[in-house]
């Protein structure tokens, strides 16, 4: 069993909303609601769900970019505290992030080489010029960028090249876990394939672990060992990627998979799309029941009365659904 890099327990992140009346209680939006998550060294965990499900907020809490209201985060066995600047600095050497917008995540006034050097010095302090240059060149080569491009600026490069530069910047401090928040979503499909291949190579070559946040389920299937499905701030299903894609147990996971457009015109049967009810507004699902019940074809009185807990069916496949075990696999 390899080392557990990240252990998240009962993590809750809430944001204050505007009061509807001056004297009324302040309403809160619970973006992440009691989430447990572990990532072992070298493993790739996919985090999927629709926009607004809390997947990016969860990532931001893990990266200590937003403070949680409750719960704990441990990095390699050490509790991560938001007021511990030295501890956060240690963690950030080993925990890095790549965002969706490749051009926007680089400073437009800095050459690619300067951007990567800046990241290196932020993590490791001032460097000897020659040593820093050698490391920057080697990391650019590793992510598939011609070192001759190091003097170029982001606007002179394509989206794929900028995303490689952002990955180089994240990798220069030798992290153990890379958080990818929709890191391939804005790219064209041929470039997306290149970046997915690069991430796969980095996993094999460096033993890099990934927290891969995406709404693209086919990419997640390709890259990840495990998948957590997030709905309304909660993990509703968690299993190996093979189990999730072969036999999803939560009705929401099944609906998500069914909605993925199949790149095969012969497979499109008219009306085969399951009725996916529109995402209910947040206030409509407040209360005790299952958050998915208003869209769920299986919802019954029990789902209205009590929210299901995430439970292990005995095979390591976790589902938060009162009907999760009675359903035929694959559905």
């Amino acid at each position, binding site marked *: 069993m390899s080392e557990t890099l990240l252990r998240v327990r009962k993590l809750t992140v809430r944001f204050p909303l505007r009061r509807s009346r001056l004297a009324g209680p302040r309403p809160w939006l619970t973006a992440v609601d009691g989430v447990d998550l572990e990532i072992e060294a070298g493993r790739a965990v996919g985090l999927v769900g*629709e*926009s607004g499900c809390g997947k990016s907020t969860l990532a931001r809490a893990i990266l200590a970019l937003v403070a949680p209201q409750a719960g704990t985060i441990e990095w390699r066995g050490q509790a991560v505290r938001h007021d511990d600047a030295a501890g956060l600095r240690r963690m950030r050497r080993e925990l890095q992030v790549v965002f969706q917008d490749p051009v926007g995540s680089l400073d437009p006034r800095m050459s690619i080489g300067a951007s990567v050097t800046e990241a290196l010095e932020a993590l490791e302090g001032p460097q000897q010029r020659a040593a820093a240059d050698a490391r920057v060149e080697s990391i650019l080569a590793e992510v598939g960028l011609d070192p001759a491009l190091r003097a170029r600026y982001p606007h002179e490069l*394509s*989206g*794929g*090249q900028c995303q490689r530069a952002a990955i180089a910047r994240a990798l220069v401090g030798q992290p153990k876990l890379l958080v990818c928040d929709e890191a391939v979503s804005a790219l*064209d*499909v*041929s*470039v*997306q*394939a*290149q970046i*997915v*291949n690069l991430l*796969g190579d980095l996993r094999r070559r460096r033993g890099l672990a990934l927290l891969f946040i995406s*709404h*693209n*389920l*086919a*990419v997640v*299937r*390709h890259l990840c060992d495990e998948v957590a499905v997030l709905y309304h701030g909660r993990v509703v299903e968690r299993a190996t990627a093979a189990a999730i*894609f072969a036999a999803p147990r939560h009705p929401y996971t099944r*609906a*998500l*998979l*069914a*909605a*993925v*457009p*199949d*790149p*095969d*015109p*012969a*497979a*499109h049967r*008219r009306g085969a*799309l399951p009725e*996916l009810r*529109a*995402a209910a507004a947040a206030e409509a699902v407040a209360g005790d029941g299952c958050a998915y019940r208003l869209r769920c074809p299986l919802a019954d009185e029990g789902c209205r009365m009590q929210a299901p807990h995430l439970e292990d069916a005995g095979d390591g496949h976790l589902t938060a659904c009162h009907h999760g075990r009675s359903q035929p696999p694959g559905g």
Partner: protein
Amino acid sequence: MAAEALFTVRDLGVQFTTPRGRVSAVREVSLEVRRGECLAVVGESGSGKSQLFLGCLGLLASGGVASGSARFDGQELVGSDAAARRAVLGTRLALVFQDPMNALTPHLTIGRQLAEVALDRGLLDAAGAQARSLEVLRAVRMPDPAMRLRQYPHELSGGQRQRAAIAMALMTRPELLVADEPTTALDVTVQAQVIEVLREARDRGLAVVLVTHDMGVVAGIADRVAVMYAGRVVETAPVRELFAAPAHPYTAALLASVPRLDTPLAARLAGIEGQPPAPGAEPDGCAFAPRCPAVLETCRRRRPPLEAREGRSVACHAARLPSGVAT
């Protein structure tokens, strides 16, 4: 399905004047859209797929000039004056873009914005416009359509806004809908609903041009597909034939790049090595030659013409169409 061409593009070119000189974004594109069919125009960023239709419709950014011909039901749009274009654009030919907030005015209710489309053009009276507004919201499967009429855009979700934008495009009973990446910003669940809405509109006789880079979306709705690379159409085919047997190596590589849910996992995705040519660069030979796995000596010297055969066409020296060898 009628076979009559509703929208005919011939030798369309789009050029931009930039500080570095004139740059061609679209070159010699010819296409046809028939009534009641969905034509998907597929390509990656910079392939010219959006500029092609902006050029046809006189909507290019400043510095952009279209040449060639684009006829809607016989009427020339390229180079015609604004009044002539207005008679077609926004009435018989409607547009939907990627970001629905660009189509919706934030400070007016959905009902007011829908009604104005018909009232401004003198198509309906107030009562008729309101009835039509409800009808189009139902057509796009908007939940609680009567309530939506009183709401503002910010009160709708992203998918509902895109449906409102499509509803607005349908107000005038257009014959052709040009939708540029209408599902790109949406979740897969919402994307599936928007595709269903477009498919139903197509089934009711609306011709649809879908500009997209998403092969899954293409497979879900298109009747025919045109693939663009570096400003040119490199292949056209009926959708099933294109997916079953792509003739152009670029089309084949594009299809192979798409990760799928139903194929055995491979260690690597296919991808396409290299970069497309810089905008405006026009190599002597085929623009795809530097990245092409099937490249021949001829490809680097002579640009392959787009050759048609049995409802398909392809621009490739190395391609074999099902019934024989092209070129």
